[in-house]
């Protein structure tokens, strides 16, 4: 196995594009090394992106916050400004694994690993985050929900790397939240999860995005659920409708972590609870 640690994104993209065998990006490595250990992955080339300065940055500008692809969960947690603007996204990223995992794991890695149960993904999608994708020849910006196409599969072409995740600028009364259900209190993969992001106007929900995790091959953005609470004060009736819409949007499987019935039911429960938290964070009063 060849190990490379380039210092520019372009260089990294070229290395991967040129490799004929299996080539893997190494960000935090918390998924890649497990795959290697268990024999699921035997890369010919590993490109460590942690030496690329642009990937290690968290930058807030007028248009939003740019989070480099190599920024670990513990660094996100230490960023007070980001936590204030996007508490749901940071919480979601911080739910990935233990403190040890947080020392390494990145949101971009979580995204590109393309697990339907990835914790940070529903929160990013709800937040309307975009991924900056760099290939050997071009750079493009795509909504985060366009990255994963199925379990372990992405829309990235060979040589394309996610360089950063861009979160939009926060304006007005807004809040986000992410909840997942796990059997233990820590260390589990989400059985089902929900990210909610909303803005308020005169005490009512003005815009909302609701995204579910682990209920289908990829995270599911549920527009009907958002519609159910837009214009409401998050009263019980609209919450129930939202939960129903969430459950209806579920297309899960039964596996070692949960059943179809369980995931379908609990998706609605979590969405409700997350919506209440986001609403409160936005300054709403139920």
């Amino acid at each position, binding site marked *: 196995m060849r190990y490379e640690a380039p210092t520019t994104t372009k260089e990294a993209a070229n290395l991967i594009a040129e490799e004929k065998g299996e080539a893997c990006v*190494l960000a935090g490595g918390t998924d890649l090394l497990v795959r290697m*250990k268990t024999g699921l992955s035997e890369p010919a080339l*590993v490109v460590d992106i942690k030496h690329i300065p642009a990937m290690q940055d968290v930058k807030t500008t007028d248009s939003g916050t740019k989070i480099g692809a190599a920024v670990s969960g513990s660094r996100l947690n230490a960023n007070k400004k980001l936590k204030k603007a996007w508490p749901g996204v940071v919480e979601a990223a911080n739910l990935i694994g233990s403190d*040890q995992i947080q*020392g*390494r794991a990145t949101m971009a890695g979580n995204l590109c690993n393309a697990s339907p149960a990835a914790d940070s993904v529903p929160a990013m999608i709800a937040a309307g985050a975009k991924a900056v994708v760099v290939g050997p020849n071009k750079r493009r910006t795509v909504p985060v929900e366009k990255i994963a196409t199925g379990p372990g599969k992405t829309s990235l072409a060979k040589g394309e790397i996610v360089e950063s995740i861009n979160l939009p600028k926060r304006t007005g009364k807004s809040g986000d939240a992410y909840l997942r259900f796990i059997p233990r209190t820590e260390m589990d993969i989400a059985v089902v999860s929900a990210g909610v992001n909303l803005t308020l106007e005169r005490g009512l929900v003005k815009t909302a995005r609701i995204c579910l995790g682990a209920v289908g091959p990829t995270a599911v953005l549920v527009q009907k659920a958002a519609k159910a609470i837009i214009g409401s004060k998050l009263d019980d009736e609209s919450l129930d409708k939202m939960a129903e819409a969430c459950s209806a949007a579920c297309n899960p499987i039964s596996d070692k972590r949960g059943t179809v019935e369980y995931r379908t039911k609990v998706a609605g429960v979590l969405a409700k609870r997350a919506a209440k938290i986001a609403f409160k964070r936005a300054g709403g009063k139920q």
Partner: protein
Amino acid sequence: MTGTLVNTTVNGDAVQFACPTDESLMDALRDRVGLTGVKEGCGTGDCGACSITLDGELVCSCLVLGVEANGRNIGTVEGLADGDKLHPLQEQFINHAALQCGICTPGFLVAAKALLDKNKNPTEEEIRYALAGNLCRCTGYDKIVRAVQAASKDLRKKK
């Protein structure tokens, strides 16, 4: 074996080792540097027995490649004591009977130190969540949490 040369600092000392590029830092530390205080419980980041610090950041060494350690600072359980003086965490783990079989102990100590470095006076809940990445099958964690609480008190008194 075809190896790549890696220059690191381990517990303050310059250390050089050669390892295959796909070898984990855990294996490199155990098999090539001889630091067998770094324990393997799972090799997949789920048990925390191989916890070390990498440039001060708590990580599972089984989820780091050995070659990634080049130019980095590694801290292991072997570096916790100050000469012949045990770290307060080490002392309190012994005093509180916070270990039975002891295989998880190095990882717990490294993780607990990382916690106390950041948070001088953690609550019970903060301790429990900070140590959730370290599995112990013998103790039910009771005496471990008490030992960390006692060490945290000792460290605050020292200052």
